[in-house]
């Protein structure tokens, strides 16, 4: 295979190119270009996944230089799965955004360039092979995300964006401090070089570094109690932006926590620390769901649902730390499956919520009457996404829950079972709160206008994908195993 055909660098270069061009071409042609490029990116991600399944995990030296002089990229199964998720979410959302910004032009001009930059940062983050490179991509990603929150303008979005900016800078600051400590101790930032050096006899500075880095990343993932910045940012942004942020951006920092915890800092991990992280996850599930239940604004409900769903992701740590290999395996699979399922379903849910808001002209759960009759497909989409979030079969969310439950029972940690089951029921409560309202007839004085079909169908495609993930998810789990010890 000739080097320039390698999909790895192209996954980073392509979004940079179309993002820049969109800036020059304007939103009309920029959007079309983005959609074509995203189809290409999807194919590249699939090609990369196929290569990894055939030949195993591999590195790529940028410009032929290679570490330590140049930059190395490294792709294993976990990275490939996340790349697939990113392109699979971004493509339908781009189609959605094109329709959405035809209806509401606020923030349209900047959406495409910043989204291109953001996707480039995301793709680069997943395949970065050293801690400093990860920092750079993380910072880029954070800034792009903040920019997207602010594009609509107005007081509330800008306030939310500033709060988000503060959180994300604090997070990456803590992370960078950790990187500095590690570099000071070992003189390297390469994951490959560091992995054999960090043992359970590592100096205290390294433990401190690990704690700082993980804390910073948890802040960026909005794990309870660091979730304060998320609802206003995700709930206030334009719908396609909320969808991208909830589905993908927080998954990036989660991905890094998994990477660091399971691989680099594995010798330093303890059961107590893992239980603590799990407890935060459990608190997020319960607290986020309860707050979602009390919201009166539709997008705030969906945003708090994200806070809750993030909690499930972090249950993987107590289940995978110092437990039997079988339990640890299914915990990792369950956590990653949850990331995939939530990514697809939450993107669908925000998109559907956006359509409902466009149709009714306001963001109010109590005045959703008539949506069921006028936008049945959108309501159905919302319901299907809800099924995934509740963890009912057949859906990706169910597969995730099944794997996590299995890990919990196999490792004898039944208390997480209770949390997951209660969380699922609370999720059902807030999802059906919306559905129930939407089934009512349209209220006097309210009107429901039809929305462009493309908004309905792109959201439906995402929801359908989240369901099908539960039926055809087995190959992804095989892909996930590529490059992981066993």
């Amino acid at each position, binding site marked *: 295979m000739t080097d320039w055909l390698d999909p790895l660098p192209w996954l980073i270069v392509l979004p940079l190119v179309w993002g820049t061009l969109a800036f020059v071409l304007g939103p009309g042609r920029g959007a079309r270009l983005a959609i074509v490029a995203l189809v290409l990116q999807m194919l590249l991600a699939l090609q990369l996944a196929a290569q990894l399944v055939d030949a195993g995990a591999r590195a790529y030296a940028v410009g032929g230089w290679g570490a330590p002089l140049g930059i190395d990229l490294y792709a294993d199964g976990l990275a490939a799965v996340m790349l697939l998720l990113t392109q699979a979410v971004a493509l339908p959302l781009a189609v959605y955004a094109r329709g959405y910004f035809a209806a509401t032009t606020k923030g349209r001009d900047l959406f495409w360039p910043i989204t291109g930059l953001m996707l480039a940062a995301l793709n680069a983050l997943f395949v970065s092979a050293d801690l400093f490179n990860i920092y750079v991509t993380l910072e880029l990603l954070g800034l792009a995300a903040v920019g997207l929150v602010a594009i609509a303008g107005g007081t509330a979005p800008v306030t939310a964006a500033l709060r988000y900016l503060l959180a994300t800078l604090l997070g990456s600051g803590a992370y960078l401090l950790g990187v500095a400590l590690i570099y000071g101790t070992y003189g390297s930032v390469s994951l490959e070089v560091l992995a054999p050096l960090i043992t359970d006899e590592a100096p205290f500075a390294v433990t401190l570094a690990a704690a700082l880095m993980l804390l910073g990343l948890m802040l960026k993932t909005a794990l309870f109690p660091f979730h304060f910045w998320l609802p206003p940012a995700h709930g206030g942004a334009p719908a396609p932006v909320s969808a991208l942020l909830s589905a993908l951006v927080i998954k990036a920092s989660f991905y890094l926590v998994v990477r660091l915890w399971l691989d680099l800092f594995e010798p330093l991990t303890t059961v107590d620390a893992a239980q603590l992280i799990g407890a935060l996850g459990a608190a997020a599930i319960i607290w986020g769901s309860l707050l979602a239940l009390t919201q009166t604004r539709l997008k705030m409900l969906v945003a708090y649902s994200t806070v809750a769903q993030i909690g499930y992701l972090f249950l993987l740590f107590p289940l995978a730390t110092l437990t039997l290999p079988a339990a640890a395996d299914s915990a990792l699979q369950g956590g990653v499956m949850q990331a995939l399922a939530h990514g697809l379903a939450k993107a669908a849910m925000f998109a559907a919520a956006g359509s409902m808001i466009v149709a009714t002209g306001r963001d109010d759960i109590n005045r959703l009457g008539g949506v*069921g*009759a006028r936008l049945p497909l959108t309501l159905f989409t919302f*319901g299907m996404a809800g*099924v995934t979030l509740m963890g*009912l079969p*057949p859906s990706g969310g169910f597969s995730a829950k099944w794997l996590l439950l299995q890990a919990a029972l196999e490792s004898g940690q039944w208390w997480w079972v209770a949390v997951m089951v209660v969380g699922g029921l609370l999720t059902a409560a807030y999802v059906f709160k919306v559905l129930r309202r939407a089934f009512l*007839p349209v209220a006097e004085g309210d009107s429901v206008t039809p929305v462009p079909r493309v908004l309905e169908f792109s959201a439906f495609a995402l929801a359908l994908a989240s369901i099908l993930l539960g*039926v055809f*998810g087995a190959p992804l789990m095989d892909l996930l195993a590529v490059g992981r010890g066993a």
Partner: protein
Amino acid sequence: MIADTWLPVAVVLSSLVPGLFIFFLAESRVRLRTTLNLVGAFAKLALIGVMLWGVLHDHEYVFTHTVLPGLDLVLKADALAMLFVTLSAVLWLFTTLYAIGYLEGAPNRSRFFGFFSLCVTATVGVAMAGNLFTFFLFYELLTLATYPLVVHRGTEKALRAGHIYLAYTLGGGALLLIGTVWLYGLAGQVDFAPGGTLSTLPPDTAGQLQIIFLLLIAGVGVKAALVPLHGWLPLAMVAPAPVSALLHAVAVVKAGAFGIVRIVYEVYGIEFAQSLSLLLPLAIVASITILWGSLRALFQDDLKRRLAYSTVSQVAYIVLGVTLFGPVGTIGGIVHLVHQGIMKITLFFCAGNYAETLGIHKVSEMDGVGRRMPWTTLAFTIGAFGMIGVPPLAGFISKWYLGLGALEAGMPWVLAVLAVSSLLNAAYFLPILHRAWFRPPPETWPHEHIPLRRGWETAPLLLLPPMATAAATLIVGLFAASAFSPLDWATLIAGREYLQWTP
């Protein structure tokens, strides 16, 4: 052979695919929607016919798809599955015809028939599930597919009923999920197999198996409306009549009862369940449910509510039969699965006819209704007599076998339960019949919607389905001893569930 793998899938798809198309149809496409509905229903029947022929000739129809490593979705056509699948498909056809007549001109029909088809898809999946996970999958799908049907009218009352329905069924689903995961952790994939598969587990797991049994039965017991988990059922009757008919006769309640049959016979195995002393407590719960349901039915003036409580009681007969240790009791329970479905659907069709034709919802309004609607009332009478257990109707066969089974199992007190319950059945059905046939009708019917036309007491599509199912009630009772009757099929199944039985 390809057909052996894909036939079970085709049976599931034959209602799923038309259903999905119907969702996207405009409200006004009545003819196309009706065609899709009927093509689906007849295709399903034809496919099932082929499979029945095959199962009789020892063909194996199994479809397996790996969802996750160590987690397979299995659809299998065994004898028990075929019994339930056939029942669902036949009654679905009748209910679809009835619903087409019932909803003529009503709003949101595409949504209704879409979810209606999904509901049957889920039921057929429940029937053919080859392992506990597949069962759980379709069981939850059934919950989701029926919710929009229950709240279809969109009134405050319907929404409240839907809310309570969800609270009960999703809660039950959660218990079922915990039980299922736990059991998979202990025993690997839990396939349904005659005689059960758990008896090979080490003896020290007995305690866990008892707890899991409790979780599983509580999970499916919600849908089977076992007391005290029955609270949702009388409320859910706010749904349109075809939905109530389907809910009570084939879909939801029956899925719960069928789940109990599967868990006791094909997961634990009846002999193993007996050795873990799990059967007697379940028999007591079933007996309480039988008596409580009948007793509550006695005091309901709303006709559909009375029928709903009657369902609570009648479905528990199935559970009772399951717990009677011995093949005769098994036959009684399994055959009642079919008989109760046929009889109850007749009664709900008739209740719908009274409401649609004359605006009658209450028992106290039914004076002389037999003069105005003789055929509907005849069908209702056959259904009611069947429920009471008058020979030679279907219900008599069930009760006869249950009684014999109780003696065989050494539980003579069950006979007393059966006797009291039959008396109560008579006490809440006979006054209705008396009113309908012997009280003088009012001068005019104040809420008449459908006038007499050319000798038809109501719309033909409303009248013919209950006539057909009432005839079936008579036929399955009269010809119970012939080949291919439900009784014959139940006997075949019972013969396979007992590995070491010597009478």
